[in-house]
């Protein structure tokens, strides 16, 4: 008898594992397809452009035949796209034209994104933690805090960063002129890195352009649903604490919510890095677009799309791994 139960249990586990593998495979395939699509989209935008990158080079016209062959500008769209994908698979995204002439795009993109991850990940985590803490308190109650969160969070990221910088600058100048403090060491010149600016950037991204209010409203919604469900009533009826049962059920919806915010945060990254003079993928993207450095802008945009698609993939995998109900149907 116990052997039969054991076999059934093993079978169920095997089926769950194989269905998880199918789901992971399905999601990973969708990720790869989306990324290919994004690369194609960028390639179409470039293909339909009125000029070409050679016009921007000082001696472009002399080198035109050579460069057209090198970059495949004379090829039709599909061939250009396949060539780009083939090279990208070998890690070759071309070389920068105008921002860092001659430097491989891959090197620039990887370096810049590693630096920017130091802003992106902390701001996502900070926003999520703050939203959850606020939601834990306000969910299901008529709270003025909800309106306040919306009023503050709706301000654009750049306005937040601007007001924080102006406020801190003016306050510090006033204190310095009054002789209350000596020049603090964090009060750096714009060309020097400073932890204050990094902290301001993380705060502006975590709160601004509706990030905090979206996560807060989403968490509240999930919390209300979980707290009013039957199993929490059962836990309460037995006199146990509800929190250990609420929190694990929050993981899946929060993963989806957080993954959905990554695209917005990447947009915010461009803004804060320009406004607060930080050096990362966002600022590099801006410079590449301003100086019409096509290969670099393309590389950075595709890396941004990859990060957004990867965030969705991770969000899905987290959901599948914590919620067995999702594994039944591939």
């Amino acid at each position, binding site marked *: 008898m116990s052997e039969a139960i054991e076999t059934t249990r093993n079978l169920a586990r095997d089926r769950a594992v194989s269905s998880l593998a199918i789901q992971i495979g399905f999601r990973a395939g969708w990720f790869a397809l989306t990324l290919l699509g994004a690369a*194609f989209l960028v390639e179409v935008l470039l293909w339909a452009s009125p000029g070409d990158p050679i016009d921007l080079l000082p001696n472009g016209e002399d080198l035109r035949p050579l460069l057209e062959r090198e970059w495949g500008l004379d090829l039709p769209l599909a061939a250009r796209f396949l060539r780009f994908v083939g090279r990208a698979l070998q890690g070759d995204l071309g070389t920068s034209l105008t921002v860092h002439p001659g430097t491989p795009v891959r090197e620039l993109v990887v370096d810049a994104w590693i630096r920017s991850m130091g802003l992106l990940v902390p701001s996502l985590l900070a926003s999520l933690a703050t939203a959850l803490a606020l939601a834990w308190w306000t969910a299901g109650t008529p709270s003025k805090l909800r309106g306040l969160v919306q009023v503050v969070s709706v301000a*654009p990221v750049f306005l937040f960063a601007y007001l924080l910088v102006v406020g801190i600058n003016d306050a510090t100048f006033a204190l310095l002129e009054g002789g209350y403090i000596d020049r603090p060491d964090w009060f750096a010149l714009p060309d020097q890195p400073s932890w204050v600016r990094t902290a301001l950037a993380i705060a502006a991204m975590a709160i601004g352009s509706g990030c905090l209010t979206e996560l807060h409203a989403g968490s509240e919604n999930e919390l209300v649903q979980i707290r009013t469900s039957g199993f929490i009533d059962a836990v309460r009826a037995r006199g146990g604490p509800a929190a250990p049962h609420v929190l694990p059920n929050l993981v899946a919806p929060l993963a989806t919510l957080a993954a959905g915010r990554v695209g917005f945060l*990447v*947009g915010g990254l461009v803004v804060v890095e320009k406004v607060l003079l930080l050096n990362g993928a966002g600022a590099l993207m801006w410079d590449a*677009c301003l100086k019409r450095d096509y290969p670099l802008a393309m590389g950075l945009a595709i890396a941004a*799309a990859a990060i957004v698609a990867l965030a969705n993939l991770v969000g899905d995998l987290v959901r599948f791994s914590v919620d067995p109900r999702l594994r039944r149907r591939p």
Partner: protein
Amino acid sequence: MSRRPESVFLGAIPPALVLCAWGVSVLTDYDVVADVDPSRAGLGPSPALPFGTDHMGRDVFWRTVTASEAFVGPALVACAVALAIAVPLGALAGYSGGTTARAVRYLFDVVASVPRFVLVLLACMIYGSDPLVLATAAGASYAPGLGQAVYARLEALRGAEFVLAARAHGLSDARILGRHLLWVNCRRLVGRHLLYLFGFFLILETTLSYIGGFGIEEPQPSWGNMLAFEFGQHGMNPLATLVPAAAIWLTVLGTVIVADALAEPGDV
């Protein structure tokens, strides 16, 4: 999120004022170059100059009003672009289902995977930072969000009893889709998304103009470049900074409040 009528009324005031300012600005001509007058730089508010002047002696009130031209028109174009792309595609996918739905959703996923701001920057790089390019790019980058919402709504309603009843009465697919599904069941949803897009476009335009390079360039005013222009001007008229900052903040807030008021029961 359900809201009290009085807060929705208050929320509607800033967007309404912006539309009035846009109308006034289009009808009058304020000369942005001739207004420079260094002898009245950084003046405080007075009856003739309600918000004072900036550090080049320009009238902050008129610049704030004129700056509405930088985004209202293009934002309406962006809304039209998003509407024209997202609603037909979303409706097609939601009403027909199957392979068409998968293909359309894949298209939406691809466009949505490139962050909106990055897509707009790419478009500005390739086609120049003309307001029309900005508007088209913003509308196209917003389209997946609206399209997914329309798709999800129609997917849920496709098999509803009232649709079966309409079909049994012999109504055409076009009439069921256009009137019963899109007009009756999706207009608030679409209206809400278009208001969000309006707010998004305001944020986009002021951000680009603030950082400079794309967007509106001096001497043409935008609330974004007005802020950038006054940066670091200590002891000058503080209203020259506070007025555009408050204008951005309140307009986005008001737009979002009105949009949230359009949410139907069951919407998140």
